[in-house]
């Protein structure tokens, strides 16, 4: 960042040999190389974003082509923010975010810590554990629906086998109490390996000599864990939380397949509601305002978080 002003004026001539080259200048090459990417990103991301902002102030409906488009000012925003259903969706999203991250960090870190004991074959088992996170959430989520079937589902059967309950006596996806936890379970199953991998990298980045020094100081293992392991892994862990946070705020495919937002609206995460407004009810203007609110929320939260992360890193 510091040399940005210099960049603006200076020619890009990083190597001494540059003067010798024929043809295009480095600066021209740099722009030729970068501009297609920037152009594509502008077309696919920024232009749509601006368009969304514009639409969010109208009553436009994409399925009513001939209809007059009226400017409605902040009415869409007002409606969304004063609608109690919006806040219920936000709550459902917050519940999902908090508990998925909580469990993934807990289990992910524990696994990484165990794998770091370097038992024989740990590489192989790490690879196996990682598999779920690489798979299509829609396809896997759809299959989990089958596992959650009250009578015939394997999940219910296994739980019933351990608890002695009747496997048709509880409905993972159908009951208001259990459904929010069912989506947390599947997301945790899928994404714990992600946190695990990052934690493992953190653990492996701790040089042995720090522990050796601690041994010399006769610090207990427990003490070493809290004074060395945790602080050293923390920046990694926070990075993992950032990624999971952003991803789960956007969460759509997995939950759509599992519950579709039900029962009632118990698991209707914001992005599911957004999809309903935009592509089922076709209230394009309203949905655009909703999208902007979501974007501002995730961007704002992420920026605050990144600041905190940087502070931890610098320590």
């Amino acid at each position, binding site marked *: 960042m510091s040399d940005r002003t210099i960049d603006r004026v200076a020619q890009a001539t990083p190597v001494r040999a540059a003067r010798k080259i024929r043809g295009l200048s480095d600066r021209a090459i740099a722009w030729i190389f970068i501009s297609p990417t920037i152009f594509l990103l502008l077309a696919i991301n920024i232009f749509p974003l601006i368009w969304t902002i514009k639409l969010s102030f109208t009553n436009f409906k994409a399925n009513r082509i001939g209809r007059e488009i009226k400017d409605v000012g902040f009415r869409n925003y007002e409606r969304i923010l004063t609608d109690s259903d919006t806040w219920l969706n936000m709550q459902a999203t917050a519940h999902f975010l908090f508990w998925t991250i909580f469990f993934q960090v807990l289990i992910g870190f524990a696994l990484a810590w165990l794998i770091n004991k370097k038992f024989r074959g740990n590489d192989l088992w790490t*690879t196996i*554990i*990682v598999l779920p*996170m690489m798979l*299509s959430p829609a396809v896997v989520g759809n299959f989990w629906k*089958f596992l959650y079937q009250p009578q015939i589902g394997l999940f219910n059967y296994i739980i019933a086998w351990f608890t002695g309950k009747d496997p048709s006596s509880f409905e993972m996806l159908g009951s208001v109490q259990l459904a929010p936890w069912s989506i947390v379970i599947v997301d945790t199953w899928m994404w714990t390996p992600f946190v695990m*991998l990052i934690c493992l990298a953190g653990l492996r980045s701790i040089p042995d000599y720090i522990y050796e020094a601690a041994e010399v100081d006769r610090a207990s293992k427990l003490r070493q864990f809290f004074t060395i392991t945790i602080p050293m892994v923390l920046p990694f862990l926070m990075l993992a939380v950032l990624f999971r946070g952003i991803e789960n705020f956007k969460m759509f*495919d997995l939950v759509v397949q599992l519950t579709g937002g039900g029962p009632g609206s118990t698991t209707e995460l914001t992005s599911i509601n957004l999809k309903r407004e935009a592509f089922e009810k076709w209230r394009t203007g309203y949905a655009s305002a909703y999208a902007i609110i979501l974007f501002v929320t995730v961007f704002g939260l992420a920026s605050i978080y990144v600041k905190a992360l940087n502070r931890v890193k610098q320590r």
Partner: protein
Amino acid sequence: MSSFSVTEPSNRSKWIAGFLVISYALITMIPLVWILLTGFKSPADAISYPPKVVFDPTLEGYVNLFTTRTRQTQEFLNANPPQNWADEIVRQYDMVIVGPSKFGERFMNSVIIGFGSTFLSIFLGTLAAYAFSRFKVPLKDDLLFFILSTRMMPPVAVAIPIFLMFRNLGLSDTHLGMILLYTGVNISLAVWLLKGFIDEIPREYEEAALIDGYTRFQAFYKVVLPQAATGIASTAIFCLIFAWNEYAFAVLLTSATAQTAPPFIPTIIGVGGLDWPAVAAGATIFLIPVMIFTILMRKHLLRGITFGAVRK
């Protein structure tokens, strides 16, 4: 490793750690194993209670996945003997195979769009990454952050204007539209990952080449590209997996011509009633390539999933 090392865990703690990790791995595999098994069950076995672990394997699910069938009258069935083993299987339900299902097409769409967008992302991404890595680009950090931030948008949010844009340009439900879209999403990952890989290639190689009279372009593709081959390959696989798994855009912007497999597989139904063996068969075929790639990629996995932020 030296037995004197204080950081080396004791055998007992290794044993316990191994036991716990392996238990977790086995539990986490259960749903995947169940997908595989269900694909080889008959519909009746698939929904039996209690769930069957031991069953007569059948290819019914796979036959149902790849074919469309109709119910026929007894006279018709008697008059037309089954033509092959697959036909034989569906005959037990008084049905005949009348043609292929859409699964093959949808799967091919996944392949076309996946590879198309991966190729484009890698092509554009390598160029941009090289420029970011080797040249002083004005506002470099801002541009790089901008590229990353495009990933924060919920896909459903961007989908509204993209839907309108595609409608106006005639790109709705086309392969080209989806390739461009996935490239737009993937390119941030490609640039960030590739920049990391190219950063790791010593500049001296190119400088030597430049002194030897190579142009910048020549140095780029004759020296840098071969050096970055592994990095490019692993980046490509990450892009491919993303495009392969993507659901939200696919379900909102495609309908038949360019629909990929993820929106399609959950909607596989039999003749009346959900056909779980066929769904499982489709899932198996769809997931296996990704599993293989994951195993091949295990060394670069961490890097891929963190946009190169963590490199080990």
